[in-house]
């Protein structure tokens, strides 16, 4: 039965937000955070450090960079690799969201979680944005830069094999009711006497 769907937009809220439950919305927020981590996690922090060092105005910048001991780092979930690699292209939060009240040329802390370690850099906003751009670029360009996930691109021969077996595995499925009718019809044609009513 087809029904035209009527959108009740009581308070002019976006359609999407209306239909999502509160849980779903908070989930999305958290997923965006993880997306940020995910993208940055693909890039070696040494590379990031060098990018920052080259453009850093603050002469004290180097001193502010420190690495936490992996023992003292936040308790990352037991399998960060899998979870991080799942979110390759979610929208990234701008670091401004995490920054202190300072804006413009002032530096703000940028925290990177990578491989069980945490690095915090003080960077100006535009530098932070270029780092993010770099991260997205790197992640988008080459999958083989990923040190983590070995299962993403299985070798072509494997896939071929899968294909071939699946071809055999999955015939066109018919509804049970139709299947029963086709069998009964075959029976009718081969049998002489009809069914008892």
């Amino acid at each position, binding site marked *: 039965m087809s029904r035209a769907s009527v959108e009740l937009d009581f308070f002019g809220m976006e359609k999407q937000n209306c*239909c999502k439950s509160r849980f779903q919305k908070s989930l999305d927020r958290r997923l965006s955070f993880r997306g940020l981590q995910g993208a940055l996690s693909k890039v070696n922090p040494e590379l990031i450090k060098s990018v920052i060092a080259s453009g850093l105005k603050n002469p004290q910048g180097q001193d502010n960079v420190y690495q936490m001991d992996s023992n003292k780092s936040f308790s990352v979930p037991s399998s960060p690799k899998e979870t991080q690699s799942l*979110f*390759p292209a979610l929208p990234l939060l701008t670091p401004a969201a995490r920054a202190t009240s300072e804006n413009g040329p002032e530096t703000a802390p940028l925290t990177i979680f990578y491989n069980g370690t945490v690095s915090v850099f003080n960077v100006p906003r535009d530098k932070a944005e270029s780092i993010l751009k770099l991260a997205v670029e790197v992640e988008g360009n080459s999958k083989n830069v990923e040190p983590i996930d070995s299962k993403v691109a299985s070798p072509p021969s494997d896939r071929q094999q899968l294909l071939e077996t699946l*071809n055999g595995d999955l015939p066109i*499925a018919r509804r049970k009711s139709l299947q029963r009718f*086709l069998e009964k019809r075959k029976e009718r044609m081969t049998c002489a006497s*009809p*069914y008892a*009513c």
Partner: protein
Amino acid sequence: MGENYNELKKSTASQTGLTDVVLGWVMLYIDDPEDRSAVSLVCRRWYELDALTRKHITVALCYTTSPERLRRRFPHLESLKLKGKPRAAMFDMIPEDWGGYVTPWVKEIAENLTCLKSVHFRRMIVNDSDLEVLGRSRGEVLRCLKLDKCSGFSTDGLLHVGRLCRQLRTLFLEDSSIIEKDGRWIHEIAMNNSVLETLNFYMTDLVKVSFEDLQLIARNCRNLVSVKISDCEILDLVGFFHAAAVLEEFNGGSFYDQPDGYAAVTFPSRLCRLGLTYMGKNEMPIVFPFAPLFKELDLLYALLDTEDHCLLIQRCPNLEVLKTRNVIGDRGLEVVARSCKQLKRLRIEADAEEEGMEDEGLVSQTGLMALAQGCLKLEHLAVYVSDITNASLEYIGTYLKNMCDFRLVLLDQKERITDLPLDKGVRALLRGCGKLRRFALHLRPGGLTDAGLGYIGKYSWNIRWMLLGYVGESDAGLLEFSKGCPKLQKLEIGGCFFSEHALAAAMIRLTSLRYLWVLGYRELSQSSRDLLAMTRLFWNIELVPARRVVKTDRVGEVVVVEHPGHLLAYYSLEGPRIDFPDLIFRLNYQRISLYRSISL
């Protein structure tokens, strides 16, 4: 609504200036479940009002919630529809004891849902004792009982229904697996019920039903409008047809080699929806006098060839619903396009493989193009084709603007298909058919590229349910697909070779997804790490490994059927279920805390 009225009156006018009384009355006119869902999210008061005034609930999968939770939210529910086993159960792909037991629900209905008048169980397991409990507790008020593709009960359970549910307007048992002990249940109905309007035991294997009881029902129930029965010699139903004065719909019966033919059969004058099982070329003329009145015609279980279809359909200018097998052929579809301008629903199933070898009995792009141009009111189309082109899909997108449910399966008989891949055609179809809510596409390797799969994602802005078989080429296609489909709630995938990693990523990106079923799933041992990536809070994941089933078919031959493994994932408020058979693995998910790693 007595006590509710006082409740509503007490609270002061809300910010909108409407009192709760007014709101409550307005809400009674809002039926559409999606509207209701939106209404209930506005604020707490509206949520409560919706809960008090909602009449019908469909629980798309019974394990997503619990009977207690349902009752707590909707204590005054009048109508309930529950679905159990995955859709694949209709194609014999789900083990019988997979789950979907109605017992806990019947218990809640019996104890607490005092306003419930209509119950519909679909693809669930029902016991005789459940029917007894239902009959004893709700028998006096129950007006509609539908055991739709259910199993686990016998005619003894139906005996309780016949004896206790005397106010039934609708008894629907279509396609259920019923253990038949005798025909007493129909006799009870004949003796006790005088208000029955719809009686349906079509596609059940009940043979001990006596036509005299059917006749009695027709005589007692003056509003009997729709009757669908199992196989029963049509000549025995002459008395029934005489008695059923207001009958509009009839399906079932059976034709055998009768020496005097079927000239003696006369149908009730208002009959306009018909489907006669095993009706052949010789018997067909008995329906000709009614053909101009036909609104629905079911030829799925008839024995007609292409020519017969043409002869019959050309006499049916008012046809709105047609179901048949692909023996109708392109030629038959051309007749449909010319004659049936009112057609809204068309279903063309696939005949047995050995039947469709002559070109006449096959449907291809030719038939589809004619159909698209001729039947502009078409809303539901399901078709198994032997050949296809992009152009035919483009025609559908151009002409069939009312299409809301489109399903296409490409059969594997022909080795070379005229025009693959179908990227352009699928894109044109989805862009053209803006009202599409349900979409199924089952092709073959090479049928749709990754770009094509991306188009499906991009242009399916209104689609809620999708079945995809053998589409795309690689994970990239699935990931592209998952960027779109903003309203996709239920996704079934078969025969596609996406990795678990891609499936997990897609699951997360599809914002409305609440149910995923994947057929042809590879063994658990190979990729347990990636599987764990799929786990999240409130998401149940069940795996049925590949299995081999040995059964005996109707002619006594032993058949070994290979069932590939499958994965089912769904949102649930109740956590993992406990009533699954040993066959099923439940994914042992860690409760990955989403909070810890975010803190800075």
